[in-house]
Structure formats: C-alpha cells, structure tokens
C-alpha cells in the first residue's frame, strides 16, 4: 500500500483543422449565434488522418516528456474512449507500443464523457494497491467518425482530441494528489444518449440530458469534495466535462462557487470531446499556469450511460 498517487504532468493534442460555426452553417441549417447561445461553442477541431490511437499517443508523449519519467518507468496505460472504431488491439496497447512501454497493464475503458475521471480513479486505486507505480491515463476521442454531419442537432456539438496524465505513487509522507473518486451512473436513464448499431451516430434526448446534468450532478460533485476533505470555497479551479456552457454555469451555480474559482470553458474552442474534454481543458489550464502548483482542482465528468465521476486533484 502507498500513500496514494499524484498527477506529475499533463499533455494534450488536437488536430490542426479548425471547423468554425460558419463552416458548419454551409453544410447544415444552423448559424453562429444559435450555436453560441444554445451551446457556447465557437469552433472545434476535426481530425483528418489521425486515429484515436494517434491522438492518444501524441498527448501521452507530451505528458511523458514533461513528467521527468521515461517509457521504461511506466507499468500501466489506461485509455478512456467511446469512439475507437477498432475493437482489437485496444488503443492502450497501441499507445504503449508507440511510446516504447514494455509489458504494461494496458486497457481501454468506456464510460463515454466521464471516462477520464473513471480512468484516473482506476489508476489511483491500482497505485494504492501496489499494482502500479507509474501510470498513464488518457482520454482520446474521434467523435467526427460518429457524427451525422447532416443532423444539425448533433453536428454542431462535437470535436476530436486527446489529453493525457502521468500519474505516479506519492512518496512516503507526501500529500496525495488524487483525491477519492466519486463515481456512479443512472442506468435507468442510460438510453437518452446513444451511439449504437452497425452504422453508429451519436443521438441524444437533449432536454433530458440537460435536465439531469443541471439538477442532479451538483450533489455528487459536492460529495467528491467532501471525500477529499476540501470545501467548495477552497478549490482553485473547476474542470467539468465540456458539453455545454449552460450546463457548466448551472452546476457552478448549484455548487455555489465564487468568482475567484477558475472554471474551464475549453469547449468554446474545442467543442465536446467526450472523454478527452477534461484532460484537454486541464492540460491547457496547467500550461497557461492559471492555477498554482499544489492548489486543489475539482474534476467532474458526466455523460453517456448516464455515468458520472469526479475527484479533487492537486495541480501538478
């Protein structure tokens, strides 16, 4: 057993192709004002040749490069994704092969948009149990493969990208940097968000998802804070899943967060990237040094399933 784990470094990757709201207005009946006021997205990145494994690898390479560790130190690779078309080999082993990680425990995990927090919780548990010393957890999605580009209700929402964290065992006496995960789901409502069938496109009952997210999740986020022994007024930043600014604003209001808390709104420039949204937003926030090292950050993912998971981390 160890004292827990901490995130030592993050990295992210987004495809270079930018698709603006005006670009979308040329292929479906929509417009910039409508998308911004309903969803809050201005543009998103869409992959051309990059696969989920490519994006996951690029993000992980950056995280590893700034972690002070090498591929030889890594013993576990976890990839959260719901959009990898290839079923086998899994994304995690492909990433491990390209990073040169030797014989890691390597698996994919699918809880859709809450995937990164599920993955981080899983890795934290493995480290606490002594089953891993140094792990990489990645959220990577290519939702453009699963988007019906003729459906204006969904085509405007999603984007592609990846974010990765290097997580290591905390030293003896060192404060744990990954707080206890609060995770769960509402399976009775699971069918309101779907990617199913042989030609799968993302479909959702938007009103029901919106209502669930804005009314039922704040108590779970508060429980994640409580488990970490952190009060809402103590957190430096809140990085929720990036689906809709109105959902984020609704949760922030119910949590009672003050104006000093940095609230990630990376969806403005990235769209909804499902499991990649939290590590993408978090990696950028750290890169811009918006939060001091050691400060508590609340992560909270939610989405398809309907699953949710969150934890407090210490900023690397």
């Amino acid at each position, binding site marked *: 057993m160890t004292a827990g784990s901490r995130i030592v470094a993050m990295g992210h990757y987004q495809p270079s192709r930018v698709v603006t709201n005006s670009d979308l207005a040329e292929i479906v009946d929509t417009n910039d004002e409508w998308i911004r*006021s*309903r969803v809050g997205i201005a543009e998103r990145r869409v992959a051309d040749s990059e696969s989920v494994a490519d994006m996951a690898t690029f993000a992980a390479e950056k995280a590893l490069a700034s972690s002070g560790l090498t591929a030889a130190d890594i013993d576990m690779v976890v990839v959260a994704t719901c959009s990898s078309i290839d079923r086998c080999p899994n994304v995690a082993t492909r990433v491990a092969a390209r990073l040169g990680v030797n014989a890691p425990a390597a698996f994919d995990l699918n809880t859709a948009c809450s995937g990164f927090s599920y993955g981080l919780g899983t890795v934290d548990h493995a480290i606490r149990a002594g089953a891993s010393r140094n792990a990489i957890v990645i959220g990577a999605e290519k939702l453009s493969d699963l988007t019906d580009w003729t459906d204006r209700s969904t085509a405007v929402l999603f984007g592609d990208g990846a974010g990765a964290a290097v997580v290591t065992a905390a030293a003896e006496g060192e404060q744990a940097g990954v707080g206890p995960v609060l995770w769960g789901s509402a399976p009775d409502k699971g069918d309101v968000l779907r990617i199913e069938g042989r030609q799968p496109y993302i479909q959702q*009952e*938007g*009103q*029901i998802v*919106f*209502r669930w997210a*804005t*009314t039922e999740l704040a108590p779970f986020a508060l429980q994640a804070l409580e488990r970490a022994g952190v009060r809402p007024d103590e957190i430096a930043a809140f990085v929720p899943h990036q689906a*809709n600014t*109105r959902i984020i604003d*609704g949760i922030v209001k119910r949590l009672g967060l003050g104006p000093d808390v940095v609230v990630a709104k990376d969806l403005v420039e990235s769209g909804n990237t499902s499991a990649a949204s939290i590590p993408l937003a978090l990696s950028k926030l750290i890169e811009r040094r918006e939060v001091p090292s050691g400060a508590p950050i609340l992560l909270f993912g939610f989405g398809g399933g309907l699953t949710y998971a969150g934890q407090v981390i210490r900023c690397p």
Partner: protein
Amino acid sequence: MATREEITSGLAEILEEVAGVNPDDVAEDKSFTDDLDVDSLSMVEVVVAAEEKFGVKIPDNEVQNLKTVGDAVSFIEANH
C-alpha cells in the same frame, strides 16, 4: 390552491428570470417557443423552476406536451 391567474403570473416571473421574457407578453394562449422565443434548454430551466415554485413534479416525458403557457398552467393546477 393557486388560481390560474396566480400560476400564470408565477410563470411570468420565472420566464423573465430564466429567459428574459417580458412579463407583459405572458398569457395563456402564448406558445413558449413560437411566441415567447423560449429555446428547448430554457424550457427545461423553466420547468425545473416551476417545480420548485409550485411544489409539483413535471416528468421528463411531460415537458414536450407543454406547448403553451395555458398547457403549463393546466398541468400545474391539476397536479399541485
């Protein structure tokens, strides 16, 4: 027991706060989307606020049946 007029004025307050609707425009024959320009997500916010204000439960599958202010008033009147 609130009257229909009281429920309508309560809804007008909610609509003003949630979606910036002018209370003078709110009447039972008005459609939320077509007349009052309430989008689908604001409609959810109106429903959630109405549940709290009037002590009613408005299930997910009922929301789509509430086309006009009068529909909402009738539902609240029958269920609170």
